[in-house]
């Protein structure tokens, strides 16, 4: 068995209802393992809890229950202490969906990357500007982009900066939350290829959150299907997508437009889960 890099165990999240509203159980007992260098996808529709899982792993939400460990060491995911947050940041990084709101618009690309590099113990502060250049070229940006602010960059270029920022820290895991969903089709393909190359060269593991089964098929070896806060199916991407055992996965698959596809009105309620 390969060594488990990231281990998520029985994660729960309940959002307390305000003023007479009911509590919302967003994540209800989710467990999975991610091996070093692997790419695992979490698939699900809106409200399935997939983003909440991602946010708990990087410490943006405090779990109601359950644990997240990296290399067998439990991350104190609930803690907001600076030392714990830095420790988490060195191990787990995140790339968000919206490249327009996830970069500091007042910082230049170089400042954004240098700040992230300051968390990387293996890069001496004197080497930071060299490293910024190397990172930029690794994500397909030119040196001139280092002085640009995010406002001067296109959506695809910003997402490249966000990927470079995540990798700057030298993390074990990068969590990509719908990282290509907001991009134009032609740019999406470029970024997907880039992510694949970077994983081959750096060996960073990916946790890829997506609603798009075709994208998941292209980027992940294994996947977890979530519905209403629970895992309904798990396995290799090949088996889950091509021979789904859960009715819900089948429905997700059938809903993807392709040649000869006919849209379907389906009202039947899926049993179980």
């Amino acid at each position, binding site marked *: 068995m390969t060594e488990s890099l990231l281990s998520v165990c029985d994660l729960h999240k309940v959002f307390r209802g305000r003023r007479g509203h009911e509590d919302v159980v967003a994540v209800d007992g989710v467990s999975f393992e991610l091996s070093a260098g692997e790419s695992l996808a979490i698939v699900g529709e809106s409200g399935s809890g997939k983003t909440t899982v991602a946010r708990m792993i990087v410490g943006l939400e405090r779990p109601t229950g359950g644990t997240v460990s990296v290399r067998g060491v439990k991350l104190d995911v609930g803690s907001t202490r600076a030392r714990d947050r830095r420790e988490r940041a060195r191990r787990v990084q995140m790339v968000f969906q919206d490249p327009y709101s996830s970069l500091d618009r007042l910082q230049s690309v170089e400042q954004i990357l240098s700040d992230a590099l300051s968390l990387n113990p293996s890069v001496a502060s004197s080497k930071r500007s060299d490293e910024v250049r190397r990172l930029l070229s690794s994500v397909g940006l030119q040196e001139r982009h280092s002085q640009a602010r995010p406002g001067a960059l296109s959506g695809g270029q910003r997402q490249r900066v966000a990927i470079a920022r995540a990798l700057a820290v030298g993390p074990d895991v990068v969590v990509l939350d719908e990282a290509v969903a907001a991009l*134009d089709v*032609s740019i999406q393909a470029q970024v997907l290829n880039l992510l694949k190359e970077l994983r081959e060269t750096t060996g960073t593991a990916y946790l890829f959150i997506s609603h798009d089964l075709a994208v998941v098929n292209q980027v992940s070896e294994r996947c977890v299907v979530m519905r209403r806060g629970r895992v309904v199916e798990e396995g290799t991407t090949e088996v889950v997508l091509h021979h789904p055992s859960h009715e819900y996965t089948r429905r997700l698959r059938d809903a993807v*437009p*392709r040649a000869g596809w006919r849209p*379907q*009105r*389906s009202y039947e309620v899926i049993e179980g889960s």
Partner: protein
Amino acid sequence: MNESLLQVSDLTITVPEGGYGEARRAVVTGVNLKVGAGEALGLVGESGSGKSMTARAVMRLFAPGVAATGYVEFDGVDVFAMSDEALRHMRAHRVAMIFQDPRAHINPVRTVGAFLIEGLCASGVSVADAERRVLSLLAEVGISDGTRRMAQLPHELSGGLLQRVMIASAVSMDPDLLLADEPTTALDVTTQSEVMAILAELRAERGLAMLFITHDLELAAATCDVTVVMYAGAIVEQQLSPKLLTQPHHPYSSGLMVSRPDLDVVQQRLPVIEGQPIAAFEAGSGCAFAPRCTYVLPICRDHVPALSSFGGGSVACHRAADLVGVLPTTTTIGGSHD
């Protein structure tokens, strides 16, 4: 033949460049479209392609400062020359529009019911009759507990439900043409499938024509009779949908298709279109797609190719004839299997 419900001829749209000058930038250049009664036309493009601007031009919906030249004819009448009253009548009764984000196009502090009956009541239908009609419409779009929904406020409904409310509202005045601007982009795939199915049913029952704007070529081709691909403010290809999928004639259409990841085939590297999409005013001399095109020749950089009839549709490419059978499609790349 002049049977088309909507005819757009040589439409060019410019926006002010900003600053104090008079300079203007083109966002749509020389677009020609025809939509027959009951027909569905898909308009596909990436950001900046001018697809939404083109759709808005049909309703003469322009932001301040936007100027359009050319000719838009709806049911035989020149839309740009219409009186305000005629325009109001067209927008209220003949052409309806649904948008990507339904939440941005509904009054958040009024109930869903008030929103739905407003149009009917304004045209002289009594409140009780309007409510009855709206209820049966809601049932048609798959909302069975209509009475409860009508008493709710928009924020109490999910995105998918709210989009169905928008569709019910759009068809409540029995229009002839529906402009749908990325109506399913913000929805889950299963909800997208339902919404598209509902649109198909309503269109078949009512003979409703549709101009469907999307970035998703597969979705457009699967749901529309004809698909038009736009790039940098101009049409690069127009084909019957099934033909476009099996035999695209423009390198951009082919590139869009094959760069989408596939549900069945995993590729080591996705074939990409290098560079990024541009707007019309960023295009140099020659073909706007030339800087990104794999098949580019010197002529492409110097002369803008005209959109001309080809292979049953039309294509704007100097090399269309050379590239027959050369351009990859989803099936040639993967070999589909299931």
